[in-house]
């Protein structure tokens, strides 16, 4: 059935646009076929044989995160609250990415684990491992479904295909290139996607700025609309929902900048898997650091177009003036409306290809991380041990199919209960904050026991969920409103509670249980790891840009400068 998708978003795509989109898919599937010829072991399939150069894994690192939720959501935030959205990148991503590269990657890459949950297994044993592996696997399949649903709604509104047709077609494309080429195909497509999305969004941003009369024109128009307060990124009270500027800054720095983002970027296997596919320690360390450079500039071509759309597209400007009510559009349509108004046929095709590419890459990233964790961490460790290597590659391929089918089911569910999906995502975010606390404590405190590992994790997650339930709206109808917290502010506080409770509980439980013998912790705890693992990346560096710490320093200086410029 053709849904009542409102036609105001229908883009005026012509044959040439379809041709450009079609060409992109020929390349995507071609990469899958090509990568297939290079797969000869399960390590090839799941970790690209640990052979990729740092710039490839670095770009894949950020592209895996540059999916539907990111592009549509962040341009929508740009349209709604303006420059404070930048914090999601400059505060909420860069510091954590640098920390991952410098501090945590030596443990992940150096210990030769094949997944983040596997690190959990070796440091804390089976219980913590199972908690982590299962919650991760479930979250990934459901999030893949959310990505798939968003993808299908975009295809539906852009091209008019029925939702169910677009769901199945996009799932089929993702499925074919991952089953064929495994992680290599996913990563190569992410890199390709990165350039296509820039080729689409950069001209869109420049044309938009030209349309409103440059940066000055944009600020004048925002002043005229009475929204020029949105031109300062700090203190970001619109973002946190806190009334006090001081608390808002604290909330952004500690909640978003520390707990939430460190939890997400340093323990989320979807991201870390990309860096693990690097060819050596230095490349693995540099992957997230190299990724941090494009990451700090992506908001300029995602958030700024959203801000431009909010003043230049009449429907959206009216919608914003009415306080985000009325009309048959909303902030999520900002980017699409701007594309509709500004891009000529040709460039429009590139833009559609870029968006579809980004959405599929998001889903592919979830699925390729899922099949690794399922095959290695659940199937090989607990169900069928000691089979030949080909067996696990086959399990990975079958699970890709199963995950895709479940994602289609989730997408169907999401189409009837869209709010439920938002809350599920908030909930999954709560798994990350205590995970970071447990990892960082486990990496630097050799006494921390196996029991403390899983008890800390479970109680931290429980603390986050409790705060979310007590808040006003973090979990929708399930929230009771005892605490006067709402919006992002509630998530920040929930994540902070998870972090603190996890640390406290872990320390107390460690005091009451037996630590593991030191011989089992080699390479997993800082004090018991050869120092050369941490300096390996440095000593091999012939130039400053080959040294992880120096490169990270440059990135840090740049991102601090950006904060001052757009203050």
């Amino acid at each position: 059935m053709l849904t009542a998708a409102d036609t105001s978003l229908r883009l005026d795509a012509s044959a040439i646009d379809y041709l450009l989109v079609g060409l992109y898919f020929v390349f995507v599937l071609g990469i899958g076929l090509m990568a297939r010829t290079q797969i000869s072991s399960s390590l090839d399939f799941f970790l690209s044989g640990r052979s990729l150069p740092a710039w490839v894994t670095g770009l894949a690192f950020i592209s895996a995160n540059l999916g539907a939720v990111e592009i549509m959501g962040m341009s929508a935030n740009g349209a709604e609250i303006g420059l404070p959205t930048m914090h999601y990148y400059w505060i909420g991503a860069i510091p954590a990415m640098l920390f991952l590269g410098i501090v945590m990657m030596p443990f992940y890459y150096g210990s030769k684990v094949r997944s983040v949950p596997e690190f959990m297994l070796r440091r804390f044993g089976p219980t913590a491992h199972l908690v982590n592996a299962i919650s991760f696997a479930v979250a990934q399949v459901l999030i893949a479904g959310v990505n798939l649903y968003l993808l299908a709604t975009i295809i539906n509104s852009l091209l008019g295909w029925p939702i169910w047709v677009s769901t199945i077609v996009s799932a089929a494309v993702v499925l074919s290139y991952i089953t064929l080429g495994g992680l290599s195909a996913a990563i190569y497509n992410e890199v390709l996607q990165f350039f296509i999305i820039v080729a689409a969004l950069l001209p869109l941003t420049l044309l938009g700025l030209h349309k409103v009369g440059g940066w000055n024109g944009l600020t004048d128009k925002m002043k005229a609309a009475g929204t020029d307060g949105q031109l300062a990124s700090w203190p970001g009270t619109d973002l946190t929902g806190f009334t006090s500027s001081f608390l808002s800054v604290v909330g952004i720095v500690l909640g978003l900048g520390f707990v939430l983002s460190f939890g997400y970027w340093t323990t989320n296997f979807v991201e870390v898997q990309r860096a693990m596919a690097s060819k050596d320690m230095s490349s693995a360390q540099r992957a997230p650091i190299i990724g941090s450079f494009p990451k700090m500039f992506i908001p300029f071509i995602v958030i700024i177009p959203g801000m431009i759309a909010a003043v230049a597209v009449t429907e959206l400007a009216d919608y914003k003036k009415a306080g985000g009510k009325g009309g048959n559009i909303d902030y999520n349509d900002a980017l699409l409306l701007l594309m509709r108004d500004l891009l000529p046929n040709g460039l429009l095709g590139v833009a559609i290809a870029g968006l579809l590419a980004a959405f599929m890459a998001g889903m592919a990233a979830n699925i390729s991380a899922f099949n690794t964790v399922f095959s290695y961490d659940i199937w090989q460790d607990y169900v069928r041990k000691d089979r030949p290597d080909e067996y696990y590659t086959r399990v990975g391929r079958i699970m890709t199919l199963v995950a895709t089918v479940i994602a289609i089911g989730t997408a169907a569910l999401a189409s009837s209960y869209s709010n439920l999906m938002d809350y599920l995502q908030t909930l999954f975010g709560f798994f990350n904050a205590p995970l970071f606390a447990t990892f960082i404590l486990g990496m630097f405190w050799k006494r921390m026991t196996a029991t403390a590992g899983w008890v800390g994790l479970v109680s931290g997650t429980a603390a986050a969920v409790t705060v979310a339930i007590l808040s006003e709206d973090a979990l929708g109808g399930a929230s009771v409103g005892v605490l006067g917290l709402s919006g992002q502010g509630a998530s920040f506080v929930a994540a902070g509670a998870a972090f603190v409770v996890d640390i406290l509980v872990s320390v107390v439980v460690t005091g009451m249980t037996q630590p593991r013998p030191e011989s089992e912790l080699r390479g997993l705890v800082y004090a018991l790891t050869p120092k050369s693992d941490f300096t390996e990346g440095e000593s091999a560096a012939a130039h400053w840009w080959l040294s992880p710490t120096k490169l990270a320093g440059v990135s840090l200086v740049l991102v601090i400068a950006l904060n001052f410029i757009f203050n």
Partner: protein
Amino acid sequence: MSDTSPDSTPTSSGSTQTRHQAGWFDIRNVIGLLLLIYGVVLLVLGVFNASDDQLARADGVNANLWAGIGILAVGTFFVTWAKVRPIVVDDAQVERDKAAEENEPPAH
């Protein structure tokens, strides 16, 4: 089905039997080729299909033309980069690495 890696053909430089360039397996060539095709299509549209209606959308800027030039430049950069600094795959070395990986004690 252990070995599906591409045949080892000697390169024109005539080095050892097992070394060959990655060629189309090099992601830089894939990115470069797609961008070059996109660039050419946009450039052609910018030159031959710049009707008033199309130009009006972007306030008179010939968006296809300029974007086409930009994308062509980036595409050329990738193809040139791959040409100047090719990846040389040494099949013998790959096999040795693989053997070393498999002979390592199990991870746990």
